[in-house]
């Protein structure tokens, strides 16, 4: 066997060990989700004593008294809220990150430090002031209000991430376009943005995830069941005295599937990189 073959095999071995590490705890959750009321067996390799899909059908098949498919509705809410969060966060953060990367301006340093500082403050006490703010703006119990809250809380990280990406793009790229007569904004949209696609994808994924799994703010700001996002539904299975861990586990598995699909779709952005950018100016 040649040296490169051996190396290749070693890489696969390492990756499989990592995959096992990543999968193993999830296998326990899956086993719980598949044990229909019965016990789980096995100490090292988990498996359900009596496999059944009861938990899945119960969680997915939830229907209101009026015949509305609740799970479907809440899945849609979650997708809409998380996607809107990702778009809004990117919309707010991208121009600001670009400015921080390319311009020298009064207050830039202070603003950057403040952004980092917002992440340092544990938000124990912020949920009630926020509630009052949303109430004042008439955005309580709306998806818009929730999206705004999620998006702005994802903005500091998004700005840092994107500024790092802009810094890595050679300045000559857009300067060449501007010499050719493009305005800075046109150069930004047509030359710089395509070049930072991987960072945009990561930032969007991050903002999406922060909204996708969040439940305390969602449950606090929303009161109408037809606006609930999936984590609220899920957390009802973890009530103080009426928990149903099988349902919770099944729901958790279901909730993670769209994320995996999204990530699968986004990975093209993560590998294509610079090759597509920077030539159109």
């Amino acid at each position: 066997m040649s040296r490169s073959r051996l190396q290749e095999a070693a890489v696969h071995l390492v990756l499989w060990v990592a995959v096992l590490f990543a999968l193993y705890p999830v296998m326990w959750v899956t086993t719980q989700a598949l044990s229909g009321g019965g016990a789980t067996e096995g100490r090292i390799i988990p498996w359900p004593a009596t496999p059944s899909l009861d938990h899945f059908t119960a969680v997915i098949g939830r229907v209101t008294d009026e015949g509305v498919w609740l799970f479907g509705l809440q899945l849609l809410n979650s997708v809409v809220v998380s996607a809107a969060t990702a778009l809004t966060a990117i919309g707010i953060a991208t121009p600001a990150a670009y400015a921080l990367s390319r311009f020298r301006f009064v207050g830039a340093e202070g603003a950057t430090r403040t952004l980092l500082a917002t992440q340092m403050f544990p938000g124990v006490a912020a949920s009630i002031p926020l509630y009052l703010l949303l109430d004042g703006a008439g955005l309580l119990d709306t998806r818009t209000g929730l999206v705004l809250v999620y998006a702005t809380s994802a903005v500091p990280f998004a700005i840092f991430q994107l500024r790092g990406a802009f810094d890595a793009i050679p300045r000559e790229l857009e300067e060449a376009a501007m010499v050719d007569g493009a305005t800075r904004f046109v150069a930004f949209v047509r030359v710089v943005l395509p070049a930072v696609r991987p960072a945009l994808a990561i930032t969007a994924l991050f903002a999406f995830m922060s909204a996708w799994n969040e439940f305390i703010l969602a449950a606090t700001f929303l009161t109408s069941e037809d606006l609930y996002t999936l984590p609220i539904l899920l957390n009802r299975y973890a009530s103080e005295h009426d928990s149903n861990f099988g349902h919770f586990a099944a729901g958790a598995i279901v909730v993670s599937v769209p994320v995996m699909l999204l990530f699968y779709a986004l990975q093209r952005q993560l590998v294509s990189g610079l090759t597509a950018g920077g030539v159109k100016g």
Partner: protein
Amino acid sequence: MRRVRPHRAASSVPSGWRVAGPGTAAVLSAAVALCGAAWLAATPSVHGQDARTPVVVWHSYGESEERGLSAATAAFEQANPDVDVRLVAIPWGAYASKLEAAIPVHRGPDVFIDAHNRARAYLDAGLIQPFGALSAEATDDLEPAHLAALTLDGTLYGVPVSVKAGALFVNEDLAAGRPLRALEDLEGLRSTLPSDVFPLAWDADDAYQFAALLHAYGGEMLSLEGTYRFVGREAERACEHLLRLLQTRTIPEETGYELVRDLFRGGHAVAAVSGPWLANDLPADLNYSVRPLPVVRGADGHAMEAYATVEAAMIAAHARSVSASRRVAAFLAGREGSVLRAVEGRHVVASRGAWLDPRLASDVRLRAFREAAAAGRVMSSHRSMHAVFTPAERALRKLLRGDAPIPAALTEGQHRFEDETREPPAARSPVFGLLALGMLLMLGCVSMVQRARDPSFRRDVRASMPAYRWVAHAALAVGVLVIAPLVVGAGTSFFAGHGRDLHYVGLANYIEILTARGGDLLGHGSVWTVLAVTLAWTAANITLHVALGVSLALLLHRPTLRMRGLYRVLLVLPWAVPSYVTALAWRGMFHRQFGAVNAVLVLFGGEPISWFARWTTAFAANVATNVWLGFPFMMVVTLGALTSIPRDLYEAAEVDGASPAQQFRHITLPLLRPSLAPAVAMGAVWTFNMFNVVYLVSAGEPDGSTEILVSEAYRWAFTRGQQVGYAAAYAVIIFLMLMVANRGLARIGQPVGGPGPKAGSA
């Protein structure tokens, strides 16, 4: 790295986006915002405007119990056509915080259902109003003890609807008709059972559960006046008995609800002690019965007395129609509503009359729960009740581990309780604080005016105008929705008290925290000790996150690698599955008797480890869980960063004869840095403040030594009598520490928060 960001703030004010930056950028973000707003602003379904009085009822029941509540409210509406009852289910994890946010601004419920022992906190926070006098008939129908539990300072604050207390579940197939009247009978079963079957599944190292045995021995956790009582001869005897139960393997070690449930339903326990909720988790074909808790012969034949919780319907402050709300609440608690709740939702109802109904009278199991609840001891409504459990439990676990003799461990628990529930600092005149604030503001103004006078500064500002158009919208959004709520929250740190009942104390909270409340500066629970743990926690996690994330990304980035897509997707799984569930799975994996980690150790000839009994192993368990949760994020960020490194750099290096190691050091590493630095910096900050792993996995064990700063802050805010001001001061201290650390790091040469490379002006 956290995935669920606990209570983070952010903003509203969509108009902010319209002032956004240069032409199209503004249009872009404004369009997103406005389209979003138009698309999403579908108003919640509003019931038709009719003449009926609406009564909104909030509850945190799960699905099965909710059915009972729906049946009862439907019956109420039928009999009272003038009232429209709307049930709203709120997940339990957000219940209290939602009540606290919504009721003061008149957006809350009219009636809500919660345990009696939360009533004091709700009263402190001004969330409930007196229920008013009950009719003589209703009073007769309810237990005096239940009404007393809801009577605070001589006023009734709710009407009891259900009662829950632990009962003895017996697997009849395994018990085979043996009388199990005494705890000692269960102990006697040990020799007759195979080693993988326990006589009793009971999470007795939980202070709430252990109280049942303590009560049998004549002890108690808290006196009526709020004095800590888990010390003394009775407590010691109860602890000795518990030690014996563990040593004889009558009960399993390190038990929690999940293990009790799994052992009992899997036929690995003859009996179990748990509440009525366990019945929901048992399969229909399990042959079991429910009985009151056994007597304890060693305690002169007194019965074990579990804590009973009275669920009550309370009238919210600002209820729209108090009279209609009272009618609804009284119906739920009354005979007819109770029968429906019991039949449809299996509530163990408090109404005495309801049990005369033939459907309830013939329901053997439900009646057994009622008998068990009647034999229970109603938990004290005292403000300090919740504060008892953590110190008591830590004392209990310490003596069970044999780390301290019983009396010493118990006395230590008492000291901690007294420290944590000490009287808040005395009120101070806010004059000095206001003066200081005014001075600061004035100084700020003066320095701004001085700067504005400087012509070069003005020139700089004018030159900055184009840049401002790119950042204005972000500044506004973050300012309003992130920074303002945090500043308001931080303001609470100058106040002390419980719930909303606060008074100004100046810097007293800060002084108490920084001086460890007069205790040993390096002792248990001192902010300095916890800081050291937090630093170790952050360093360990970030190192492993980066090491694992970067190496996996480098492997995945190899152009020749096959199945890259599959690997990538499988490796982000830990990020995709909600962390609450996976953190609990990790906790289960570290169980001493039943966990997978010890099973693997034994397989390779090792000795099983009590993971949560020592600081090092408990800390390692927390870190393992958090590394698992966080490495995918670092991997994904690195993958993105790697793609922006031009390939021709490597080609050129190869031509120059650079080895792969040299290429990594001189090309990959320096070029990864700008993209990775923000992720590492933020990751460090998030890890520093990541409390849910600590909370769910080690829960601070052993003896609170694995708590980090932010989990301490949460405990002050939620389990130690709601000392929100103290918790806010903790949060501000965490913030200041991180600021200092960041400045320090920036000086060393990791420009983390510093300005980016400068370009010319626009």
